[in-house]
Structure formats: C-alpha cells, structure tokens
C-alpha cells in the first residue's frame, strides 16, 4: 500500500515546507496538502463588533466576521493550489477551520507521515524553533512526524555552550 503523507502548510513557511518535503517523499506516496484557518481570527473580528454597543447588525455581506470567513476559504484554496504547483505532483487539497493545533492532530489520524515545518525562532537550533501550535502538533501527533526546516538549518555552533554551573557540574 502506498504511503499516505500529510503536509501541513502555513502562511510564511509553506514554500520551505514543500521544498524540504519534495525529495523525501516516495514517488508513489499519496499526498494531501492541509491548510487550517484559525477560527479565532474571525471570532476576534466578530467580538470587536459585538463590543460596539447599539450599532445593530451590519447588512448582509458587511459583517466583518462573515467577510473574513468567506475570504479565508478562498485564500486557503489558492495557497494549496500554489503549493501543489510548487510540489510538482498531484496532491489532494484539504482546507479546515478551527483550533489549528487540534485540527491538524485530528487530520493526522489516518495518515502514515505528517510533514511539519518549524515556525519559531529559526536563527538557532533549539526548542524555540517551534512555535506554540507546532510544538503541540509534534507532541501530540498520532503518527510519525517529519519535522523540516523551511529554510536552511542553522549550524551546530548556534547551540549555546552549556552553562558553567549546569546539570552535572557542581560548583567547587
């Protein structure tokens, strides 16, 4: 049975994620490209409107949360189409909405490999190179995870030297 690979793509790191995964995926792999829109973005816009007491409800098509929801579906599909073109091979496209880290873990349930890009501080090797959502996904994924650097990985010299009184070294 061919491998089922899921690429989680996020704005800002998607190109690097596609580029890093391309040479590592088997030729016969069934690839799915996943984009998750954080539901809180529309919620925050709707909440700000609710805070404007007395203004009534905007006419249809003018509610900021609804406008954002409509736009986000469209732009997610465009991003996945661009990613498929960049990958250079056929892939399934999946757009979801919700609490991002939970939706990604859920989507990884029936997959053989989840590809995730680091999205934190990428100037040095270390735990800070994973943002909070990526951290959650790596920690909770129900399948093997391929964690890639979306751009060139920093050198080993970026690891700070161990502290002088760190574990294993007692002060004299």
């Amino acid at each position, binding site marked *: 049975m061919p491998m089922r690979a899921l690429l989680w793509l996020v704005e800002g790191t998607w190109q690097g994620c596609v580029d890093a995964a391309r040479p590592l995926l088997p030729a016969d792999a069934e690839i799915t490209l996943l984009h998750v829109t954080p539901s809180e*973005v529309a919620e925050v816009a709707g909440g700000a409107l609710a805070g404007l007491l007395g203004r009534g409800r905007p006419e249809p098509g003018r509610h900021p949360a609804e406008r954002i929801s409509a736009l986000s579906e469209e732009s997610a599909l465009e991003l996945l189409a661009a990613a498929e073109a960049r990958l250079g091979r056929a892939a399934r496209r999946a757009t979801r909405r919700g609490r991002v880290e939970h939706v990604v873990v859920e989507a990884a349930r029936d997959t053989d490999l989840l590809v995730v890009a680091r999205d934190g501080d990428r100037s040095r090797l270390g735990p800070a190179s994973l943002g909070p959502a990526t951290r959650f996904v790596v920690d909770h994924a129900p399948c093997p995870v391929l964690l890639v650097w979306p751009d060139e990985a920093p050198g080993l010299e970026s690891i700070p030297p161990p502290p002088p009184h760190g574990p294993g070294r007692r002060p004299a």
Partner: protein
Amino acid sequence: MPRAPAETIALLLLAATLAFAVVRPHGLPEAVAAVPAALLTVALDILPAHAALDELRNLGPTIGFLAAVLVLAELCEREGLFAAAGRRMAVACRGRPVALLGLVFLVGSTVTAVLSLDATVVLLTPVVFATAVRLRLRPKPQVYACTHLANSASLLLPVSNLTNLLAFRASGLSFARFATTMTLPWLAAIGAEWVVLRRTFASDLVGRGELDAADRAGARSAGGPTYAVVVLALTLVGFGMAQLAHLDPAVIAGLGAVALAVPALAGRRARIADLGRAAAVPFLLFVAALGVVVRGVSAAGLGPLVERLVPTGGSLWSLLAVAALAAILANLVNNLPAILLLLPAAAAAGPGTVLACLVGVNVGPNLTWVGSLATLLWRRALRERNAEPPIGEFLRLGALTVPVALLAASTALWLALRVLS
C-alpha cells in the same frame, strides 16, 4: 418617588436596556428597549421631565456629530479608500510581515482617530485580513492589531470614539485643545500595543509574502481616492479651526459628509437610502435614550456615590486611579454606559479627570468585548451572534496590553497636562 425604590428601578431600567442591546432578541434594534426605558424614567418621576429634556439638548449636537462621522466613513468606503489602503499596504511592506504590522498600526491608528473605531472594526479589519492572506502571510497578528487599535488608538480626537464625543462637550475643551492634550497619551497607548503585540506574535510574523503578478499590476494601475482624502484632510483642518470661527465641529463634519455625498450621489455610487442607513438612526435613538436612562440612575442616587469614587486632582496618582476605575467599569458594564455614569462627576473635577476617564473607557475594552457582566449573563446569546465569550489568547493578550497601555497613556496624559497648562 422615594429614593431607595427609585434607585432600584433606575438600575433595573439600565440593566434591561443594556441586556436588550447585547442580546437583541429577534434582531430587534437596541432602541426598542432603550426608548421605552427612557420614557419610563421620566414617567416614574425618577428624572424630572425638564432634566431629561436638558440631557437631550446636551446630547443633540453630539448625536448629529456622530451621524455625520458615520456617513463620512461610509462614503470613504464607497470611494474605495479602504481597498486602496489595503493595496498600498500590500505593496509597501515588500512582503515583510513585521513591516506589514507596522503599516497596519499606522493605517489602523489613523483610521480610528479620523473616522472612529466603528470604521476600523467594520470596514478596515476585513481589508487588513484580505491584505495579509493575499500576500500569503499569517493574518492573526494583523487582525488582532486592528481590533486592539480600534480601542486603544481611539484617544486622539473627539470624533475617534463615541465616548470621546460624549466627554468632549462635558470637558469644555476646544477640539484643538482636546487633540493636542491627547496626542501624547494616544502615541503612548499605540506604543504599548506595538511592544506587546510584536513580542506575543513573534512566531507568527515569519516568512516572506509575495504578490501575484495580477495583484501587483492591479496595485500599480489603480489610482487612489484622492478626492476623498482631500475632503478628509480639509475636514480635519476644519475641526481645528471651527471654534475660532465660533462654529460647532459637528457642522464641519456635516460639511465634510456633504462634500463627499454630492459627487457620490451624482455618480450613482450611493443612493439617499444608503446614506440614511449609514447614519444609523436607531443607533442615534439608542444613544439619546441611554443618555436619559443613565441620567436617571445618577439622579436616583448613584451620582453622589460615583462622585465619591472618582478621585479628583491632577496628580499622577489620581489620574491613574481615575483611568483604572473607568477601565474596570467599562469591563463590568461596557464603555458607553460607563462614560455616561462617570461624566457628571469627572466634569465637575475638571478636564484632566475627564480625559483620564477616556483613557480608561477606551483602552479598557481590550480586556473583554462587551463587558464581563454581559459576557457572563448572556453567554448563549452572544454565541449565537458569532461573538463567543473571549477566547484564551484574546484574554491573555488583553491582560498584557491593557495594564501597560493604561499606565503609559495615563502617565503621558499627566505629562501633557503639565506641559500644556
């Protein structure tokens, strides 16, 4: 009516008015409850009829001013001002997310100051979202920035926020004096937001955005709404000069709206009905009625209590205390009734206290949206209105920015008052 029951009834009327405005059963306009509550306030003799008329006479110009600003913002939208701002930001940030955030701060603060927070929330936020996703950058920091600035960047001008319009008259300050005094607090609040948002969303401000060839070409070929920008600039200058010519700034706002409305109507980009809708008559009625209801609450006995609670004096500590009190009240009941409740006592204490109140009621709402009592009591109704109680990240961000912005803006206000007096 005896004092104790009058006080209870006045508070109940206020609670009912606010509850109805938050829940809006069957989508009915907020004025449906507010107007009868105002009539009852007078009929039950909680507030004498002449005092109610006094309040309405006071509110009249403010409400006219508000209507003109709402129409002005709507016409700017129809002239394509917000879409043009989005295109400009997309090109000017050169794909860098932090540069885009900087531009969102610039545009968001300006739109809020000039066209009021309503324009930022309703008209600018979706444009900012569209700009970020068109560049394939993460929209979250940009949208959060927009909604936060709608509140904290609404300190600058009387037109920036309805709370300011209400306080402007009570303060006795001229438009120019209000603006010069509030410039420093406005900048301080924006600066505080920048520092906190930039840090909190560091891991979302990554990557390099790109514009499609079509978007780039569109941005280059599309002209800006020059006429609308010129009218807005002249309106602003007019605000500053109005009082020299003994004109009410509301008149200037009206003239600005007319200057934009005439070509829009002639060019069929807007109909009279659109302008009527933009003026939001039910909202204006709601503000007038809420003013009467709150005045009833003050008259029935809460007024002296608020007076005792509001610290007076121009020291840094009293300004900080006033801002904190106003922020707490805004988070309990919503900032509109909060400022109406505080105004009589604050105005008696002087313009510095009024402005400190504004710092509190304008910055404070970034902690909860509608006010926490409303959020607690009407959770379900809020959820149906796509305004779920604040989520974890929103609350965390508010808990970080609100105290910092309050402290920075109040200190800046104290400085400004000392320098300008």
